């Protein structure tokens, strides 16, 4: 078991007048894949967005350590540079900005913050081609404006492509499997598996145990009403599917 890459301690966060996360504890070591499951509205996306630094949410208690560093001190773009990537549940359209422009800007912005030289256009193209190959993505998407007019599935696949291009240390995938047909699901899973490395970790948010047949998690967490009520190995996902959240929650309470 490697060093904890991500350590969430007693995290309380929410919007004015409402606490959404109510004491989340989670430890994710490098090299592992953790699945995060939970009913609609339980706070999964909120957790993902808080990790990424969305300003809409305020942390009222607890802290998040990323590679030993308190994330509270970092702005969203600095978190990205530190190696945190979020595949959005609802990827955003950037009209008129091609995938190429977007990723070129992103990759170089990250490199610059790390004090690395920017990639020249040739090196960049090479890197993006490799990334596309790794996740079996059509490099032609690079020519299209980011997410503009993409189908739901295309958007999700594009997130995984960006993930491959940015090669982060921690990837949070927020329902990247939702809306994918069975073939696309396998492609995405294959991509994620190809990106697994001893120094990289994944937090995979999903509603479906089906995905976990392809991306086999080390640990499954169940989030209910802003708290992780149960953690276990991958059989927990099977239990959830069979018995539903209520039953699992009840058992956990005993």
């Amino acid at each position, binding site marked *: 078991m490697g060093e904890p890459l991500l350590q969430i301690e007693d995290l309380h966060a929410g919007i004015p007048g409402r606490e959404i996360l109510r004491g989340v504890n989670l430890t994710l070591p490098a090299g592992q894949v953790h699945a995060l499951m939970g009913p609609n509205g339980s706070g999964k996306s909120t957790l993902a967005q808080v990790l990424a630094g969305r300003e809409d949410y305020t942390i009222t208690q607890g802290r998040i350590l990323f590679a030993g560093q308190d994330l509270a001190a970092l702005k969203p773009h600095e978190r990205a540079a530190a190696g945190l990537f979020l595949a959005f549940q609802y990827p955003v359209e950037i009209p008129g900005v091609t995938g190429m422009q977007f990723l070129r*800007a992103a990759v170089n912005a990250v490199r610059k913050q790390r004090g690395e030289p920017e990639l020249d256009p040739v090196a960049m193209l090479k890197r993006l081609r490799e990334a596309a190959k790794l996740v079996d993505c059509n490099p032609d998407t690079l020519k299209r404006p980011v997410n503009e007019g993409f189908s739901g599935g295309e958007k999700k696949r594009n997130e995984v492509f960006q993930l491959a291009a940015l090669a982060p240390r921690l990837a949070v995938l927020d329902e990247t499997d939702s809306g994918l047909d069975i073939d696309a699901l396998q492609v995405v899973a294959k991509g994620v598996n190809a990106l697994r490395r001893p120094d990289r970790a994944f937090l995979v948010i999903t509603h479906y145990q089906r995905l976990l047949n392809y991306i086999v998690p080390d640990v499954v967490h169940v989030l209910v009403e802003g708290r992780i009520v149960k953690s276990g190995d991958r059989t927990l996902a099977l239990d959830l599917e069979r018995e539903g959240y209520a039953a699992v929650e009840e058992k956990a309470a005993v």
Partner: protein
Amino acid sequence: MTTTDTIQDLVPDKYKYGFVTAIDADTAPPGLNEATIHLISDRKQEPDWLRQWRLKALKHWLTMKPPHWAFLRYPEIDYQAISYYSAPKPARKDGPQSLDEIDPQIRQTYEKLGIPLEEQKALAGVAVDAVFDSVSVATTFKKKLAELGIIFCPISEAVRDHPDLVRQYLGSVVPYTDNFYATLNSAVFSDGSFAYIPKGVRCPMELSTYFRINAQRTGQFERTLIVADEGAYVSYLEGCTAPMRDENQLHAAVVELVALKDATIKYSTIQNWYPGDAQGKGGIYNFVTKRGACRGARAHISWTQVETGSAITWKYPSCILQGDDSVGEFYSVAMTNHHQQADTGTKMIHIGQRTRSTIVSKGISGGHGQNSYRGLVKILPGARHSRNYTQCDSLLLGDQCGAHTFPYIEVRNSSSRAEHEASTSKIAEDQLFYCHQRGLDEENAVALIVNGFCREVFKELPMEFAVEANKLLAISLEGSVG
């Protein structure tokens, strides 16, 4: 803290072209009367017809009042306080004979601006006519162009060497009586570029002029005339910068384009004159008349402009579509930041049958900037089966700035139609966060999103200049949101 606040504080303003070149200049005393015209004509050793034309213009101008219909606010300009002629003193009396003879100071200025004045640097294939204050200092590639019969030179030189051509076309698109600023320009125009592309010739390189306003208290009045003879093609780029000054400097240029039968003229402008400081002090007043005439069948004129500079921009590049099946296009990005004001747009006058025009205008306002699109589409009774498509998008980067649209559409026959689409938007918080999550800071994220907003216009620019336009926009955006 909202995103809006943060962006405002982000970056100090820098106008990176705000240096002044210390050179000896031959500058006329301030003031405008007949003696001024004679001084200009004498200095330039002009033929009498041109001197008389200037005098007629002056006489007419004295009866005119500055227009006030534009959505712009600025103090009255004292036209008698301006100097109407300034020329760098040449080392030799008859001016530089070759590029090597140009004042090294001037060359350095151009180098700072990144203009490939020396031919060896001009690998990009751009022929540059550089106008420094009132005088054109160098025209590169002249010989190569001459082999094709293309004339590309300062207009003062064209008056001397190609008087018939100049006389035939000068004022034929923008008459000296046209409007206050054009009339003023006709009276006092100093220099500018002239290009003539003969029948059937496709100009093999971009022609380019760089204007730079350097001397203090000088107004700059360029006159550009481009004629594409039957079946000819030319792409022309005009780029402008000015040093940082506290006083407002007046700039009233006239550009005339003539496209004969089957000819195409693409005219691109990147205007980056000093916009004034963050408090709205200083900056260029840019009152420009640009007009193109499609004189023959299937003639095609396309204006593309990226306007990021100037304190005030008053500019309506227009097309007169006389020839049947002729085409007019206007692609514009206008950015106003701080206290900049822009009232810009186009006029498309459809006269010939089956004439078509396209207008794509992208206005971006930040800070206290005011950005107006003003467009006239006029389809005359005889212009049967003609079409116009207008798309007018505004992007607001803060809540202190403004975007305004004034479209005037007149369709005077039943077989033609004009379509108008308009939108006003703001950068969504979601888009910014998405960019931040990928590593882009506030400044880069805004620049990228704005760039996407301008895509339809940028793709009309010649490649090298699209990159340049991008950079300029990023500089102009600094401190734009608030």
